[in-house]
């Protein structure tokens, strides 16, 4: 791409400026823009940088400084850049740059900055426009901050990314930025930028952040809860296991006791001559009665959770609720009746009105109106609307069928609740009495003689032990029921959560993939730099040897840390000999040449590049840069590129443009370009 036109409005000393850089030949690649100090050369360089990169460009301009925040620097810089002649009222400044490439490709960017009467930059009003393609099509851009992101991307793609700009814009007044003491760092940064490593680093960081964020999302949503729930389920399972084991143990303990009881009963029976069967029956009866009593107690507990709980609300509330349900039913009925009655009344009135009978009977509309009022009253009386139920339905959550069900349930509670519980209690009492009766009969069998007394005592002890074990069994069974109920609920919740986690699996997989790609990028960065070092060092060596007049340096070597060594024929590092400023500048040029050589074909712009060089170096630098296959724009003092230097450039020269400053007019009179074709 070649820069062909620069248009400035209200920019620094230029109220309006159009520079055509095409000159006499588009084949030749060198343009010289001449101007004395203060005529606007550097203003032009700044316009190029700000025009291309806007806010991002401010870091590339040495003069912008003055504030720790880039934003402050940008605004302050622009406010200083506004042409003095337009201050004092609302105004704007603009920079427009037009580039042309092969195949008729064109790219034009225009930036506009608006200012208040006080000269303050109106940040939110800033605009950028881009025209692209052979027909200069206006590129549609989004509004707001997205606009500048899009512009940045377009400029990076079509021309040059901002990160590489320092190697294309050389400012002789700020030489130290490229050729200062931090040369090693510059080399490292330069190569990294040329290889796109900062972008890769940012991408790697973004991927890491993405993966972390996704994982945290999943953890926050269900990971910790899942752990808790899984632990709760484990605990409950352990409890169930313990309870089952304890119940087994009890069942095992009961077996010998029951056997012993049977044997004791048999011995007592034998002692008394009673048949074993009848005595055994007595004890079986005792057990049966006990079991019946226990079952009744369980039913009683069940009743507590259902009917008794509901019944506790009390008769008053139940009665009030049933009355209200009846009232709700009547209100609903009346509403329905009223709707039907109203519809019928309207039908009749409408039929009479349309029949023509009123006219025939000589009834006037006024008479009919009066008659209709009477008719309405009679209708209401006949259809019983007068005795309307007061108020609105209370239990609107119930439909007609539910209302009946609730009424029936409440009525059942009123009657059956009491009967059920009383019945249960009576049955339990009878069972208890039956147990006592059997105990009495067993006791009557005891004590006939000492042996039978001992046996009876032993039997009593066994019965107590069996009773204890059975009671413990019942308690444990109930606890087991509760644990199993809770376990089932928790297992359901856990299952639901696990399926949710399964649904999250793709998210986790994406996070893993992001991590994997991030690791691959880190490895790529690690290998990319050393991989290109040799080729890069060779390019710098070539450029350096072409521009430096001493042949002492045979090779420029760069180690993987970016440290630069200038090696002589024997392999000694000449940098340790403190190279002169001129040679530092030559190295900076060599670095620029190497980086621009592997970057986009964007023009190299050199602002007063020769000031600190001796004549031999000047010639070598001019020869080297003009020999490159890209546009070279020199911004120079009038004397800087004259005489033999101009002759040296002549075969490559496309245009020489002179910036002038008319002293006779105001201090900010435009510096008009005077095109002086160098034939």
């Amino acid at each position: 791409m070649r820069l062909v036109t620069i248009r400035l409005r209200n920019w620094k000393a230029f109220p309006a400026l159009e520079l055509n850089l095409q000159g006499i030949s588009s084949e030749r690649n060198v343009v010289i823009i001449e101007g004395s100090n203060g005529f606007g050369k550097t203003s032009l360089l700044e316009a190029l940088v700000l025009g291309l990169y806007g806010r991002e460009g401010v870091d590339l301009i040495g003069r912008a400084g003055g504030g720790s925040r880039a934003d402050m620097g940008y605004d302050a810089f622009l406010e200083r850049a506004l042409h003095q002649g337009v201050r004092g009222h609302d105004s704007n400044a603009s920079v427009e740059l037009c580039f042309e490439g092969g195949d008729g490709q064109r790219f034009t960017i225009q930036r506009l900055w608006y200012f208040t009467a006080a000269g303050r930059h109106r940040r939110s009003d800033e605009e950028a426009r881009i025209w692209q393609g052979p027909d200069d099509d206006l590129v549609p851009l989004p509004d707001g901050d997205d606009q500048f992101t899009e512009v940045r991307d377009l400029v990076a793609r079509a021309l040059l990314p901002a990160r590489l700009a320092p190697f294309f814009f050389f400012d002789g007044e700020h030489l130290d930025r490229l050729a200062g003491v931090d040369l090693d760092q510059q080399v490292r940064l330069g190569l990294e930028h040329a290889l796109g490593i900062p972008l890769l680093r940012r991408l790697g960081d973004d991927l890491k952040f993405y993966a972390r964020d996704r994982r945290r999302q999943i953890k926050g949503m269900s990971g910790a809860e899942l752990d808790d729930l899984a632990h709760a389920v484990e605990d409950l399972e352990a409890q169930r296991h313990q309870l089952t084991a304890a119940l087994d143990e009890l069942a095992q303990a009961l077996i010998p006791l029951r056997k012993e009881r049977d044997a004791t009963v048999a011995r007592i029976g034998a002692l008394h001559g009673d048949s074993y069967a009848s005595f055994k029956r007595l004890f079986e009866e005792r057990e049966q009665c006990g079991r019946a009593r226990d079952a009744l107690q369980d039913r009683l507990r069940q009743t507590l959770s259902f009917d008794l709980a509901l019944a506790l609300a009390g008769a008053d509330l139940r009665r009030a609720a049933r009355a209200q349900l009846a009232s709700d039913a009547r209100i609903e009925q009346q509403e329905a009746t009223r709707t039907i009655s109203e519809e019928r009344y309207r039908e009749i009135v409408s039929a009479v009105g349309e029949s023509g009978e009123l006219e025939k009977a000589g009834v006037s509309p006024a008479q009919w109106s009066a008659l209709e009022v009477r008719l309405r009253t009679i209708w209401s009386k006949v259809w019983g609307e007068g005795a309307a139920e007061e108020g609105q339905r209370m239990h609107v959550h119930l439909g007609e069928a539910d209302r009946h069900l609730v009424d029936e349930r409440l009525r059942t509670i009123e009657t059956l609740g009491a009967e059920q519980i009383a019945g249960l209690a009576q049955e339990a009492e009878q069972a208890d009495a039956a147990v006592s009766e059997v105990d009495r009969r067993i006791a009557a069998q005891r004590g006939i003689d000492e042996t039978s007394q001992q046996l009876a005592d032993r039997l009593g002890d066994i019965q107590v032990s069996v009773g204890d074990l059975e009671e413990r069994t019942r308690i444990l069974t109930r606890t087991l029921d509760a644990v199993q109920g809770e376990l089932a609920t928790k297992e359901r919740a856990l299952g639901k959560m696990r399926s949710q986690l399964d649904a999250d699996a793709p998210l986790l997989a994406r996070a893993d993939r992001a991590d994997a790609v991030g690791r691959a990028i880190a490895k790529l960065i690690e290998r990319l730099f050393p991989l290109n070092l040799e080729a890069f060092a060779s390019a710098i060596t070539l450029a350096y040897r072409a521009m430096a007049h001493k042949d002492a340096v045979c090779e420029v070597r760069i180690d993987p840390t970016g440290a630069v060594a200038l090696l002589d024929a024997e392999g000694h590092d000449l940098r340790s000999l403190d190279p002169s400023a001129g040679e530092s500048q030559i190295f900076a040029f060599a670095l620029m040449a190497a980086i621009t050589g592997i970057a986009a074909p964007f023009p190299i712009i050199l602002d007063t590049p020769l000031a600190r060089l001796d004549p031999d170096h000047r010639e070598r630098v001019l020869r080297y840069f003009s020999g490159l296959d890209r546009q070279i724009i020199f911004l120079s003092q009038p004397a800087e590129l004259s005489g033999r230097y101009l002759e040296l450039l002549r075969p490559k020269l496309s245009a020489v443009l002179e910036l002038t400053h008319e002293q006779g007019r105001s201090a900010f009179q435009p510096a008009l370009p005077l095109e002086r074709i160098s034939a």
Partner: protein
Amino acid sequence: MSLSLIELVRTDFRTAKPADELNSRFQRLLGLPHRYGPARLAIGRSLGVAHAPKLEMSFTGYGKPIKGENLFGTGSDLACWITLLVQHAAPEQLDRARLQHLVAAHWSRGIYLLWDDWKASLSDFDSFVARQAERATIPKGNVRASAGR
């Protein structure tokens, strides 16, 4: 918005944490297999008191939730409980959130009333049941049975 029985089936109900802990204690004392057992008794017990319950929640936080279908059952049981709660709150109109709050308040008040009853029954199951049956207008003589002995 009025109440919907279908919606209430899946609604979570809970009470203040201390009341919920007492609920668990009652579950063990009465040998009831589910948490909703004492909770229902408590809500029923509180509905038997004419004035509206109050619930102070500032310092305690909530206990564990019970789904509507468990706390009140389904079908006519659920409809019955909601009808009694609405009737008790009348003339106030209830929406779901207000009902949840009201249930929490009844549950809390009821469980403390039951605790007083339990102490008054000298921690005796039969005596406690007899007392509750009596409160539910069931003749006292019919429940002097030996449940839990």
